[in-house]
């Protein structure tokens, strides 16, 4: 049972992640992603929306699977920019590791 943290999205702004709440969870990004890996990158974006910080840190290595091909960003119907979001999350995760 994860507690929803609505302030997390604001916290991520410092790392250049500010489009997560534009996403309406259609899954186009996950369908087109050449990694074809679970629900990547939608899953990460959803975790940002509900503020599931721990989930992101636990699954942080997945962020480095991304090839940054840009297909998700190009096909996103909401211009939520999933590719840039993944890069921003990498920055966030690195900052957390440094702090730890």
């Amino acid at each position, binding site marked *: *049972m*994860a*507690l*929803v943290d*609505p302030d997390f*999205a604001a916290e991520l702004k410092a790392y250049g992640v500010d489009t997560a*709440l*534009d*996403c*309406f*969870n259609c899954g186009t990004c996950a369908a087109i992603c050449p990694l074809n890996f679970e*629900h990547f990158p939608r*899953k990460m974006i*959803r*975790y940002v*929306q*509900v503020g*599931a910080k721990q989930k992101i840190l636990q699954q942080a290595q997945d962020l480095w699977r991304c090839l940054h091909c840009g297909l998700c960003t190009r096909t996103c119907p*909401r211009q939520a920019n999933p590719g840039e979001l993944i890069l921003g999350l990498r920055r966030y995760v690195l900052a957390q590791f440094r702090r730890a």
Partner: protein
Amino acid sequence: MAQKKKPALAPEPTPGGKVGVYVCHCGGNISDAVDVEQVCAQARRVPGVVVARDQMFMCSDPGQEMIIEDLKSGLVDRVVVASCSPSLHESTFRNALLRAGANPYVYEHANLREQVSWVHHGPEATAKATRLVAAAAAKAARLKPLEPIRVEVQPRALVIGGGVAGMKAALELAARGQAVVLVEKSPFLGGQVAQLQELAPEGETAAAVISELAGAVLGHPAVTVYTCAQVEGFEGYIGNFKLKVVRKPPLGATYADRLEKLSKSGQGLGEYVPFVGVMPATIPESPEDFDLEAGVVVLATGMRPYQPRPGEYAYKNFPEVVTLPEFIRLQAEAEGEGDTLMLHGRPIRGAALIHCVGSRQIPGIHAENEGGYLNEYCSRTCCAATLYAANLIRDRYPQTKIFDFYRDIRTYGRGQEELYTQAAASQVVFFRFEAGEEPQVLKNPDPQGPPLLVQVKDVLTFGEELEVPVDLVVLAVGQEPNNIAGLVQQMKIPIGADRFLQEVHPKLRPVEMSVAGILLAGTCQAPFDVGETCAAAGAAAVKAAAILARGFVELDPFVAEVDLSKCTGTGACVEACLADGALSLVDLEVAGQKVRRARVNPVMCLGCGACVAVCPENAINVQGWTLKQFESMVDLIVSDEYLEGA
């Protein structure tokens, strides 16, 4: 009795009849299973038939023209069309007869599609078609020209319900020069819309909408408004409804809250007060009633918001759980200008909105409501209203966060999808739940946190269980029809499985009831928003005005007729009659002697034939369906004489 005979439509055809038979292929629908040419060939051998023709589509212009030609040239004076079901095209062909200058009732219809080609195949199909056509032709030869029953119309409309639908219908009727009586049960005009503030999706205020409508209604000389009034007696028929209206003080404290709000507002009669409406007149001190005659009745009895059961989403368990209409009022009356919404002095930092409360309930999954029913329908308006409220809060109180829990979101109308887009842009966080796995509203175990905790198995987060601490839970309740069981029973009008009033045809006749002269407007029919309600009310008003403006109505003459040369006044028919007032015994003078004889009120008669069955003298018949006509049909069904090779 307000009844007149119209001059004859056409000279009476020669007795015996020259029957024309017209058999339709229905583009293969009939001719794939039935040998249409053979049916025509056999029909020509039926006594009385002078011509039998076939056509690919008899309902097409060339098909109708063919019939009209034969009538005009004098070749035929009775018509049988053998085609689809009479409910589809009988009126088409009766109108063709009218255009040919013939009486529209010298027409008989044989159904070769639903009753033959769609259910039978092979030679039996053609054999059955042949017998049906022969029977129809035999009946047609005995048909007599009839006159439609003409009834004068009381030049007045009664509108029941003083909400948006009723006021709009009354105004549209008045604008067409018709007198209107508007009856409202409560002391107020404005209905449920007066309980709202801004209307999704465009955001017009309820105050503006109700003030404009009520002002126009109260200011129009053709509209008479009775509040605290109910219809308690109903009889009659289209053009001549007789109603009893009772005005009485409301029971107990039904409207105490609104009356108190009105007196505190300092506003007077006829002025709009938010969450009250417009009170046009004082409450009567004692019951009074009066009779009213009206040519048409418009039902605008409206809806009520679904009231959750105590405990449903913890409603009534915690004061922080409210319905959307309750929230709209709380928000409108909230004090303070800060960044955070304040309710009763309490900051609302997070609010959960839950969709589909009391709507889209599924048998076996959701508990039945008090009356043992489920609201299986979508109330349509709640998604837009909920998103509108979410956007309004995000816009005015940026520090109040919104969590939106939906099963599905349908923002179906113009300007509504934009509400969804705007909600996402306003950082509303959405959660999706499955039917049967509705969010749980609990007390927050963390004493430092907000009072409530919403738990949900979130589809969007891959079925993970999430918890959202919130200060407020808003239940987006649906629409239920108002309880008008009394009216439904008196008027004998149909209601659907969803308990809303049921129109004649959902697409082609959407504002008419099956009882002629009764129209329906607004949310007594289905969940509507204000714009849809006005569209429906306008349509109902124009339909009603058309009936009133014409001044008379014509009814099909398929009603009982007494043969006074045979009637001995046994009264058996009166006893058997199913329609009150359709048959009675009257005193007549026949050859200088006073006798009692049956008399038909053709306007009340249902044409059911119960009287025909019981008359010991065979002195009563239903016009267009006489016993002699039936005998001729049976004779031809059992006869083989006209068949080829017989």
